[in-house]
């Protein structure tokens, strides 16, 4: 697809963001059957398989990076159309308020269901056993105050603040000269594609090397350097794609090579990482692991962008509906999923059936909830930015959502 005009809806970006969100459910549901996180994950099931690890961690390396590219893209778009003040007004309503509203609800629901599971599940995971023990001894510490799976909303707000900081710090009083940040973006855009593909992973490596492999979610309320160092460049990448649309399709013809390269790099990564639990991983993963992970992240993100342009460039009502629903699904899926998986733990089904049932039920409940309660109600307005109960005509440029 050619670069979009300034006001056309970007169906590919909408869809990619939705996929990244929906894949989050697949990821979190799968963790219950991952041998690597067995000791740490509350819903860890008796049944698990290495193939889950092999799939999940591959997805994990580029799912959120892709999401941040899309977020950066829409951020640049919003700034273009509404200015920085408009960006912040929009983002406060669409990101900060939903975060503040849903965070305590999700936190409470997860804590409640976990405590309940610890008391009732007959085949508890190691973490549930530990909770149950703590409950019995009366020494259970309160759940740590962290952002949980909503960390990305929290970090998005930081990213917007960073966008403002960098623009303000490098702006020129004179209107004639382009501000420094725009000049830097211009120079980056002018670099040949292979430089991006080789240099960007190297830039990400120190951040990945400073945390465990696979990288954790930066759930702490205090911002983490590595999270900015890892997700920040992806956000900047998306920002650059919007500012310089001519760069969008530059990497498309490399996609098959990048896909094969990513699979090879990931095989090596998985070979180095597998066989130990996350718990055993040292505080810092080794540099080769970090470098391989960084390559997979960048290359697979690029492949996804190409696929998005190729397959999701045209409007499609079902995809659009799913894209609209994805934010809601992602925000609320975890308590639903955990509640289901806690009940599945005592069943003697195979892990694959449990995985399937957990996924199907979670999606079904969230989607039905979306259609029945959210889409035309105030929550839909909050999350979707669209006017109450009314579809915005497709010719009207939408509020880019994230």
């Amino acid at each position: 697809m050619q670069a979009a005009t300034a006001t056309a809806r970007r169906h590919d970006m909408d869809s990619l963001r939705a996929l990244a969100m929906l894949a989050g459910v697949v990821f979190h549901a799968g963790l219950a059957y991952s041998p690597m996180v067995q000791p740490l994950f509350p819903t860890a099931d008796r049944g698990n398989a290495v193939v889950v690890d092999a799939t999940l961690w591959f997805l994990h390396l580029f799912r959120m990076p892709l999401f941040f590219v899309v977020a950066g893209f829409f951020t640049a778009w919003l700034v273009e159309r509404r200015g920085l003040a408009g960006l912040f007004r929009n983002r406060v309503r669409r990101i900060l308020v939903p975060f503040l509203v849903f965070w305590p609800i999700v936190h409470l629901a997860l804590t409640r269901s976990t405590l309940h599971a610890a008391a009732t599940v007959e085949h508890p995971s190691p973490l549930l056993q530990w909770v149950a023990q703590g409950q019995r001894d009366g020494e259970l510490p309160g759940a740590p105050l962290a952002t949980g799976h909503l960390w990305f909303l929290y970090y998005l707000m930081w990213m917007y603040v960073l966008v403002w900081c960098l623009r303000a710090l490098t702006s020129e009083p004179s209107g004639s000269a382009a501000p420094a940040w725009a000049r830097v973006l211009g120079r980056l855009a002018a670099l040949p594609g292979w430089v991006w593909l080789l240099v960007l992973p190297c830039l990400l490596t120190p951040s990945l090397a400073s945390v465990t492999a696979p990288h954790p979610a930066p759930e702490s309320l205090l911002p983490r350097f590595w999270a900015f160092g890892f997700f920040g460049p992806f956000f900047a990448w998306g920002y650059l794609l919007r500012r310089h649309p001519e760069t969008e399709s530059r990497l498309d013809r490399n996609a098959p090579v990048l896909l094969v390269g990513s699979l090879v790099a990931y095989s090596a990564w998985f070979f180095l990482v597998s066989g130990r639990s996350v718990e055993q991983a040292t505080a810092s993963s080794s540099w080769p692991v970090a470098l391989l992970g960084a390559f997979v992240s960048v290359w697979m993100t690029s492949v996804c962008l190409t696929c998005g342009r190729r397959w999701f460039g045209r409007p499609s009502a079902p995809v659009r509906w799913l894209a609209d629903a994805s934010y809601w699904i992602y925000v609320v899926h975890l308590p639903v999923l955990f509640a289901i998986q806690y009940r599945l733990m005592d069943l003697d089904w195979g892990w694959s059936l449990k995985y399937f049932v957990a996924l199907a039920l979670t999606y079904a409940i969230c989607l039905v909830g979306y259609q029945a309660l959210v889409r035309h109600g105030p929550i839909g307005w909050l999350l979707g930015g669209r006017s109450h109960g009314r579809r915005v005509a497709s010719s009207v440029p939408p509020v880019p959502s994230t």
Partner: protein
Amino acid sequence: MNFAFSVQGLTKRYPHFHLGDLDLRLPEGQIMGLVGVNGAGKTTLLRILTGLALPDRGQVEVLGLPMPGQQVAVKRDLGFASEDMRLYRSRTLRWHMDLIARIYPGWDEAYASELLRRFDLRADQAVGGFSHGQRVKALLLLNLSRRPRLLLLDEPTTGLDPVARAEVLEALAEVLRDEQRSVLFSSHNTHDIEQLADTITFLHQGRIVASEEKERFLDLWRRIVCQGDAAFEQVDWPEVAAARRSGSLVELKVRRFDDGIRERLAAGGLAVQSVHPMSLEDIFVTTVRTGGAA
């Protein structure tokens, strides 16, 4: 008659300076030149009229409203530029124009663009890089483009090069074509005042020493050259502001000249050789030196 401003019994006291007590009015649609040496009180008077300084005593009305009580309403129709007023150095002129345009509904963008061109100013240049002349012109642009009913200018032409001065005076002259708009501008340059003002006020050591229509000033004052040996005391009349002898020649500077003076001089033994009109500067200097009313 409507007045652009009127002050009555105005006094303002600083440790080393005392203004007042002043009574002064400017009819709407007129331009008044305020002439005085440095420290005469011109700036203080202008600041009081804009609400930047409060008087100790007296009544001040600007555009029919009492000051400083109604200063917000007054300042909506007021333009004020003074020599010591600065714009934000780090910002461009465009930024200032946008700021002013948001505040004043009457902002005339087309006129602003025209003034930009005429003053040869760059809107996207940071004001910090402006020369003195450019700064004055920028301030004037910001004031004129909002189309104020009363424009107060403190020493607008001081320190300008001849070209910039001509540009500024031209722009001011244009404002005056609109009979609804009034201007009060101070200067110690009488040439500028002479060129523009309808009314002229001399301010000296905080007091008004003269305030007249310009034409009347020029009509009334004369320099008379006479010959004769009569003593000075013989011409110690109230209308003679200054007298100087050089040999047998006597030079008199006379306020309120009329033909009767020739005869009175002749009667006193002084034969009038020539009568000359006086420049405003000459009138001003003479007035200030004698320290009296014109």
